[in-house]
């Protein structure tokens, strides 16, 4: 990002702080700026994380560590710079998260130690602080891996020493450290092959760079809470999905491919585009740029005229977004969820529904609030409480509709003053069966007991695909096979959905029941669902068979047999 490093030519930059020495409060403000800028770029750092373990959490860990450091000093009125630095280091140590967080806390520790007994921070001390930060950090590992945050700290310290030999200005020293850190980050793939293979720079090093750059931007009065204008690879300019973020008044989408006559000043380019419209994206590939913007009708030619002045335009596309929007709206003309209105004193039922179709079914049966969730996306206790705390009644019944959510529902009951009953439905059909017994004006405890007794009225079948090869309850399953669960227990494995459904129904003795209801999930189309159910109809001519869109993920079918 060297092109974006503030390096104003001509007139000396306006600075927020004196250049000879700063005190503890200045240091505190700069720390906050570091944290803010790091947080702004957190996802960028996360996305780079491939070493030592590619778990994509470096940015988060560094933010949490810096946040802990900031929490330690947020309310401090300390003027003594050395004491402030020690408080920051202490906070960073206590809150150090992950590998990069621990290293960051060691950097702070060394930094603070250099400032022992220094009431203010001057250029000489700053240089020493960077050197000691490096030394302390390097002591913490037997075999330092180069091409990481350690390398960036080392190069930053070297730049500080070099700058310190020439100037006594804090700003000048820092103004040399930041670009040096940037160059160091850009070099990390040359030192660490795993980075080169992945085509990234080191995440921790980049994080440290943002921390340093945040201070510099703050000192110069540049914004730190919005990400910089960045250029995506051309392939990443996502024109397909951009239509979702249309703002009122921005009626036209303009896309211009062009080749600039001279290197593009991105900051300026973005600033000029921002005066015309929104949803700006710029992509670059082999000297070609693609600009994407949403503009109001009267400005639809402005971006083209503007870019014409910058270089050669090769292609222009203008589209009316409003016309596109109408199409999309027509497609998504789904019935709206009509939840039951509850009077004070009545019973309000809160149901967890794993899909929009199931939510509508629950709503049609008189549920007052729906919580989205289910298998692999269990709602938290907080989400459950939030769902019912605004209902205008004291009497609440919760239908978890999944065995893994019952516990969270019980915790929600403990944490509220409302009169909460839990009907421990383990499956969606059980929940639906219980809803049949709902009497909104009845006594909550009695109604709940009645609903619980209804849980056994229904058999539940679930059809999904095995995600791994396993043997449970004597059924051996190969990854990718269709599996059927009867009342939550794995009972059959089959090679096709059709086979799986039939086997499962047979296992559940569906022939002895009257009504079979199928809720088909997002992974299966309506036509495919109907085709399979026609087969079922032929096999079970004496049973009434219903089909509903469930919209649940993972499960191709949830089947209610009663």
């Amino acid at each position, binding site marked *: 990002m060297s092109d974006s490093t503030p390096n104003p030519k001509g007139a000396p930059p306006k600075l927020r702080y004196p250049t000879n020495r700063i005190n503890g409060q200045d240091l505190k403000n700069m720390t906050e700026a570091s944290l803010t800028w790091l947080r702004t770029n957190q996802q960028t750092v996360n996305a780079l994380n491939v070493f030592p373990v*590619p778990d994509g959490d470096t940015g988060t860990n560094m933010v949490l560590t810096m946040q802990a450091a900031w929490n330690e000093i947020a309310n401090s009125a300390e003027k003594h710079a050395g004491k402030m630095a020690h408080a920051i280091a202490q906070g960073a140590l206590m809150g*150090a998260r992950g*590998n990069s967080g621990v290293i960051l806390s060691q950097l702070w520790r060394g930094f603070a130690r250099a400032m022992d007994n220094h009431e203010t921070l001057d250029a000489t001390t700053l240089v020493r602080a960077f050197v000691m930060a490096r030394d302390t950090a390097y002591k913490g590992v037997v075999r330092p891996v180069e091409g990481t945050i350690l390398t960036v700290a080392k190069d930053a310290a070297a730049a500080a020493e070099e700058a310190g030999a020439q100037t006594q200005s804090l700003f000048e020293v820092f103004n040399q450290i930041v670009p040096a850190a940037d160059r160091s980050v850009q070099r990390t793939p040359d030192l660490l092959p795993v980075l080169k293979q992945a085509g990234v720079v080191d995440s921790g090093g980049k994080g440290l760079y943002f921390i340093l750059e945040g201070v510099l931007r703050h000192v110069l009065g540049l914004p730190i809470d919005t990400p910089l204008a960045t250029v995506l690879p051309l392939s990443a300019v996502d024109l397909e999905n951009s239509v979702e973020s249309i703002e009122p008044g921005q009626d036209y989408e303009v896309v211009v491919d062009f080749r600039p006559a001279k290197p593009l000043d991105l900051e300026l380019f973005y600033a000029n585009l921002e005066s015309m419209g929104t949803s700006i994206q710029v992509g670059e590939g082999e000297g070609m740029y693609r600009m994407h913007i949403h503009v109001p009708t009267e400005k639809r030619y402005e971006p083209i005229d503007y870019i014409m002045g910058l270089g050669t335009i090769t292609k222009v596309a203008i589209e009316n977004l409003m016309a596109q929007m109408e199409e999309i709206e027509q497609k998504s003309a789904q019935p709206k969820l009509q939840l039951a209105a509850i009077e004070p004193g009545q019973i309000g039922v809160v149901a967890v529904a794993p899909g929009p179709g199931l939510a509508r079914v629950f709503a049609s049966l008189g549920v007052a609030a729906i919580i989205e969730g289910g298998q692999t996306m269990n709602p938290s206790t907080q989400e459950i409480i939030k769902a019912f705390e605004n209902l205008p009644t004291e009497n609440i019944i919760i239908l978890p509709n999944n065995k893994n959510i019952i516990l969270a529902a019980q915790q929600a009951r403990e944490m509220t003053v409302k009169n909460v009953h839990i009907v421990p439905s383990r499956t969606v059909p059980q929940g639906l069966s219980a809803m049949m017994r709902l009497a909104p004006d009845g006594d909550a405890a009695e109604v709940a007991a009645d609903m619980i007794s209804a849980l056994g009225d229904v058999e539940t079948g679930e059809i999904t695909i095995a995600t791994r090869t396993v043997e449970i309850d004597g059924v051996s399953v190969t990854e990718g096979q269709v599996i059927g669960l009867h009342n939550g227990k794995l009972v059959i494995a089959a090679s096709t959905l059709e086979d799986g459904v039939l086997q499962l129904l047979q296992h559940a003795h569906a022939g002895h029941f009257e009504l079979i209801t199928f809720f088909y999930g997002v992974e299966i189309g309506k036509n495919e669902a109907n085709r399979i159910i026609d087969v079922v109809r032929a096999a079970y001519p004496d049973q009434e068979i219903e089909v509903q869109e469930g919209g649940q993920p993972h499960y191709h079918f949830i089947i209610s047999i009663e």
Partner: protein
Amino acid sequence: MSEEKKSIGSITIAPRAIATIAFHAVRQSYGVVGLTSKNLVSGLAQAIVKDPTHGVQVRYDGDSISIDLYIIIEYGTRVKSVANSVSNTVKFNVEKTLGMPVKAVNVHVQGLRVSDVD
């Protein structure tokens, strides 16, 4: 002794080989300044051992791999975070190199090294 059947024969990996992978991963882990043999708790002077079976114990019960690490951590770092990072790094590196799952990595912090006093 960890085995994986292949059509043309079997592949056997000795615990010592696994220990070597783990050892190198530990030495590159930030915050760890040494490994120590399980029975040398008092002899912190002998902390840094070159033999990759010291400080690393690998067990294979015919089903899964468990690794025990006996380490010394730099004083002044957050021990919990360092220990977590070490176990993640070791698990990742062993699994990546072997292509077999590691069931557990137990980290035993046997001591702290004080290199500076704040």
